[in-house]
C-alpha cells in the first residue's frame, strides 16, 4: 500500500470514529433529556415549592437545550384532564410565537402555522385547535387582544392591537386563499368590480400593516401581492 492510500484509509477511519462518537453523544443527550423530563414529572411539586431547586433545575434544562416553558407545558399535559398550568404555559408560548413572527406576518398568523410551530419544539407537545381556543379565552380576560378570524374556512389568529380588519381587507384575504396566496389589481377588479382607487387604498394600507408583501417579478404587466402566511405552507 503506498503512502497516499495509507493516508486515505486513516482519514476514512478518522471520519468513522468521529461519526460514531457524535452519534453516541446525541443518543446520550436524548437519554438525558428523557430522564430530565421524567424527573420533572415525578418531582414537579418539589421543584415548584423550592425556589433554589427550581433555579438549578431550570439551568440544567437550558444547558441541554430544553425550554423550561416547554417542559412545564409537557409535564402538565400528560394527565387525562389538562390542568390550569398547562393552559397558562401554553398561553405564554402562544404569546412568544406571536411576538417572534409579528414582523413577518404583520400580526395575523394562521392557526395551522401556530400549531405546527408549537409542535416543532424540542419536546413533543400535542395541541389542537380546542386547546388554543381555551388559551385565547383566558388571555382575552386580560384585555382583548386575540381574535380568531374565519376567512373561507381558513382560521387566522389576529393578535395585534390594530383596529379590526375592514371588510375590504377580509375580502382580499379571501381572494388570496382562492389564488394560492396572491392577489393583483386585475383579480380584484374582475372578482369584486373594485376600481383602481379602491384597490390601491386597501392594498397600500395592508402593506403598511405588514399584511401583504409586494412581488414585482410575478408578471410583466402587474405587481402581485402575497399574504405572508404563505411562507409556512
Amino acid at each position: 500500500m503506498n503512502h497516499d492510500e495509507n493516508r486515505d484509509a486513516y482519514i476514512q477511519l478518522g471520519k468513522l470514529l468521529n461519526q460514531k462518537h457524535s452519534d453516541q453523544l446525541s443518543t446520550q443527550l436524548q437519554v438525558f433529556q428523557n430522564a430530565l423530563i421524567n424527573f420533572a414529572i415525578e418531582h414537579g411539586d418539589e421543584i415548584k415549592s423550592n425556589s433554589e431547586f427550581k433555579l438549578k433545575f431550570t439551568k440544567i434544562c437550558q444547558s441541554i437545550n430544553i425550554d423550561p416553558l416547554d417542559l412545564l407545558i409537557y409535564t402538565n399535559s400528560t394527565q387525562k384532564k389538562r390542568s390550569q398550568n398547562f393552559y397558562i404555559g401554553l398561553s405564554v408560548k402562544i404569546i412568544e410565537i406571536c411576538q417572534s413572527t409579528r414582523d413577518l406576518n404583520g400580526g395575523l398568523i394562521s392557526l395551522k402555522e401556530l400549531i405546527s410551530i408549537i409542535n416543532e419544539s424540542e419536546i413533543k407537545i400535542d395541541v389542537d385547535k380546542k386547546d388554543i381556543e381555551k388559551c385565547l379565552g383566558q388571555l382575552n380576560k386580560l384585555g382583548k387582544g386575540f381574535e380568531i378570524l374565519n376567512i373561507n374556512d381558513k382560521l387566522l389568529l389576529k393578535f395585534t392591537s390594530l383596529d379590526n380588519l375592514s371588510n375590504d381587507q377580509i375580502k382580499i384575504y379571501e381572494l388570496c386563499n382562492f389564488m394560492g396566496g396572491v392577489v393583483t389589481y386585475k383579480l380584484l377588479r374582475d372578482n369584486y368590480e373594485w376600481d383602481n382607487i379602491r384597490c390601491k387604498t386597501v392594498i397600500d394600507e395592508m402593506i403598511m400593516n405588514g399584511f401583504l408583501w409586494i412581488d414585482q417579478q410575478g408578471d410583466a404587466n402587474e405587481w402581485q401581492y402575497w399574504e405572508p402566511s404563505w411562507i409556512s405552507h
Partner: protein
Amino acid sequence: MSKSFEFPKIHSFPPFYTKQPNQTILNQQLESWMNIVLTYCEFYKITSLSIDGIPKFKSTTEENNALPPIFSNDEIKRNCNSEFKHLILQHLIHQHKAEFINQKKPELGIYIYWRSLVGWSDLLYQYVDKTGQRGAILTIYELTQPDDSEGYIPQELKNLDTEFLIKIIKEVLVKQGKAQLLINEDNEIGGVKIV
C-alpha cells in the same frame, strides 16, 4: 461534499426577491437574507463573495456552478436585482458580518464573517500553540496548504484564502502582540512568527 445547501422556506416565497416598502418588514427581510448568506457561506466554506453575490474564495474544491445560487430561485423564477443585492450585503456590513476586501475598491468584493476574525485567529493560534510552533518562523503557505502528512492542520484552516489569512494575522494577532509579519526585500510578506 454530496449534500447541497438546504434553503429555508422563505427562499421560495416570491416577494422575498422584491425590496419591501414597509420599513419593519424590510428589516425583517434583510435579517432573513443575512441569515441565508451566512449559513450558505458557512456550509460551503466561502470566505468572500463578489459584490454580486458570487463566491470568490472557498476552501472546498467544488465548482461555482455546482452550487445553487444564493440570490435567485429558478423554481419560482425570481431573483434579486443588483440594487437589492447590494442593500443586503450592505446590511451584512452594518451588522459586522461582512467587510469590503478593499474599502477603496468595493468592486473587489467582500469578506463574509460567518466566523469572526477573532474566532479565526483563535483557531490559528491554538494550532500553532498545540503543535509547538510558537516562536518559529512559518510561511503563509505552510499555514494553509493541505499537504501536511501528519494531518495537524485543522480542517478549517486548510486551503484558506491567503489574503484572508494575512488579514486575520494583521488585524487580530499582530494587534494583540501575538504575531509579527516578516517582510522580504520585494516588500512581500515572507513569513509570520506567532509567539
